[in-house]
């Protein structure tokens, strides 16, 4: 009896220990608690910030002969190597003043180009501006500024300063394309408060516009004749209401003034829905391309009308709407619909193919037809009226340091597709290796299927300093 009581007492004292031991199978591997390994954050000056990297990208392309509309041979570059130094610097000598510079210097070697030519060296001076904060959260700035707006990924109707701002790209991914984009010379004011912000930007006309495809004799052209060939004003108002984060925009440019709005909203924990709209009086894409070509000398003044079309100015709408969702694998899926009212409709495409594929069509005519497409690309607007966009981004895919991305633009009229698959592998903190493979798929008389560049690949190596 005494022994029994004694055992009970012992058990009651030991039981908590047993319970504790049962809870605590050690999930922390040995070595994690090693006190000798300490990591301090990189130290940096609070007045100067810099991000610099070196990059090399080798592009190879396979072109197809026998396409519906002959392609200008000079544009069919089968390979190109680009070596770049990219730097973004910001200096803040005093609290209310800062200077920002963003630049990329490139060395190009490519097919159909002499090693030393006027296209060998190209400098992309993206931004250079000064910011003054005369009052808390009130900013005045002047210089070349990259002003970016919009909620969607594949097409941004409300990103009014996107036109003619693109320069050399490694990838066709819209998310990557905008990383090397020229700013616009402007003066800008912005006020930010706890529930919103407002801004106004004035970009003056500085020079007459340059043609769509042009190389510079020195390779260090600021391309001001691309970004500041027309006087423009943009006003924005952002407010925090109904969890929509709406942004209202008013854009003035002679012949292309527009109003716009973009909104976004979460749905549950995994989905974001978003939409953009811009509308205003303007001519259709074909008319604008012809007039621009004649203005810049790309098309002769007396050129016959390339394609029958209405030259009237009417109210035209642009819409981009879609959603992003997080998948179980932690990948992010974006699906969007794009409507570009001034783009080419079914009849326009029929005329484009009929004219270009007609027996005996002169090279000058086919070049001008392809110029139309180059103009749309230069303006960063869809060529077609109805387009779908799908993108999947998968970080830590299969292995920790691998990120996979794939996207596709789908012409909803003819079903043709521009697609790209890419892989980014983080070799170390500083080295990144990337591969991009893109293809144009579709019938011969389709938007993407008519493009001679069937398949292209880019192998890229980046070193962050």
């Amino acid at each position, binding site marked *: 009896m005494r022994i029994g*009581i004694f055992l009970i*007492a012992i058990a009651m*004292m030991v039981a*908590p*220990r047993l*319970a*504790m031991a049962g*809870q*605590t199978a*050690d*999930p*922390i*591997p*040995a*070595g994690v*608690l090693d006190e000798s*390994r*300490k*990591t*301090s*954050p*990189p130290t*940096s000056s*609070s007045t100067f910030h810099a*991000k610099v*990297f070196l990059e090399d990208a080798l592009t190879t392309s396979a072109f197809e002969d026998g396409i519906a509309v002959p392609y200008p041979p000079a544009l069919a570059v089968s390979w190109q190597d680009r070596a770049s130094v990219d730097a*973004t610097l910001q200096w*803040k000598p005093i609290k209310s003043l*800062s200077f920002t510079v963003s630049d990329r210097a490139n060395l190009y070697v490519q097919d159909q180009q002499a090693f030393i030519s006027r296209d060998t060296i190209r400098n992309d001076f993206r931004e250079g501006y000064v*910011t003054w904060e005369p009052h*808390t*959260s009130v900013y005045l700035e002047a210089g070349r500024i*990259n002003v*970016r707006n*919009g*909620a969607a990924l594949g097409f941004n109707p409300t990103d009014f300063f996107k036109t003619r701002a693109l320069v050399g790209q490694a990838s066709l991914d819209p*998310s990557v394309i905008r*990383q090397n984009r020229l700013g616009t010379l402007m003066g800008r004011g912005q006020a*930010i*408060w*706890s529930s*919103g*912000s407002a801004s106004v930007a004035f970009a003056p006309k500085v020079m007459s516009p340059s043609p769509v495809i042009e190389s510079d004799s020195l390779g260090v052209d600021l391309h001001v004749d691309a970004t500041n060939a027309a006087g423009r004003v943009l006003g924005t108002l*952002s407010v*925090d209401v109904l969890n929509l*984060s709406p942004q209202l925009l008013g854009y003035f440019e002679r012949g292309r003034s527009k109003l716009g709005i973009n909104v*976004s909203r*979460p749905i549950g*924990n*995994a989905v*974001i829905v978003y939409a953009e709209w811009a509308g205003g009086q303007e001519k259709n894409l074909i008319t604008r391309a012809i007039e621009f070509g004649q203005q810049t000398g790309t098309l002769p003044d007396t050129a016959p009308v390339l394609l029958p079309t209405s030259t009237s100015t009417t109210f035209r709408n642009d819409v981009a709407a879609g959603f*992003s*969702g*997080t998948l179980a694998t932690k990948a992010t899926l974006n699906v969007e619909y794009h409507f570009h009212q001034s783009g080419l409709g079914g009849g326009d495409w029929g005329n484009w193919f009929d004219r270009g594929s007609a027996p005996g069509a002169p090279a000058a005519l086919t070049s001008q037809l392809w110029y139309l497409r180059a103009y749309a690309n230069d303006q960063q607007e869809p060529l077609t009226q109805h387009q779908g966009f799908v993108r999947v981004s998968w970080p830590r895919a299969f292995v*920790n340091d691998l990120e996979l991305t794939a996207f596709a633009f789908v012409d909803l009229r003819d079903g043709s597709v521009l697609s790209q698959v890419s892989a980014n592998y*983080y070799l170390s*903190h*500083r080295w990144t290796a990337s591969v991009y493979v893109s293809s144009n798929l579709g019938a011969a008389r389709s938007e993407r299927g008519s493009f001679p560049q069937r398949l292209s690949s880019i192998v890229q190596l*980046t070193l*962050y300093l």
Partner: protein
Amino acid sequence: MIAKGSIVLVALAATLVRGGAFTDHPPSAADIVAAADNARNPSQPFRVSLALIEYRNGQPHDTTNLAVHSKLDPNTHQYRNIVRYVAPPRDLGKLVLLNASNMWFYDPASKASIRISAQQRLIGQASDGDVLTVNLAHDYAARLIGEESIQDADKQARSAWHLDLTASTSDATYSRLETWIEEGTYQPIKSKFYSDSGRLLKLAYYRRYETQLGWARPMEIIIVDAVDAHLVTKITYSDFRAEDVKDEWFQREYLPRFTEK
């Protein structure tokens, strides 16, 4: 007879003492959680540097350095955060704005602000930085399960209150938490984080307490990924300091202008 009774009473007393029932009325579950929040989150606006070391199979694999700027919203009682990437170099300058359901990712390379969902926020190492400023007292309904003795990360036995927390607001990141708070000091020792489906996502161990901004705070958190058994992240805090964090910072329009102060 007296000897038998004494043994039982001693045995019973040992259990009662170990259970802590000789204390006065224990604080309520809500009080415990609120006090524990104070240990993790300063009440005044602050910034802190985080070094996140990712371990694979016990070996250090990757390091990310972040700077977190945080301020409590007096209206919602939620912490609003701006998380800035300091390292690795390829991510330098990227920002994540976390303001209740208004969350944005900003890439200075493209100058694009992309709205992200709560699930997207949980992707990547930066999500572990958000574990820091979870406002348990506001976002969760707490229930005291009992008093237990558990081992901390250093395998030291600690007397703790064991609480079960259930999300009570739509802004709560995790559907359910379990947490162990040390009796008397109110220092968090360990937490478990669960998904909406009840799946265990993370275990967090709090250690290396130091006085920072007027309170003993854990300077290191070990996060064990319950989904990937090979993955452990160690978050080390440094450069804890009060900061004049302005409300305007928590706008997407401010992100292109954000720089370290």
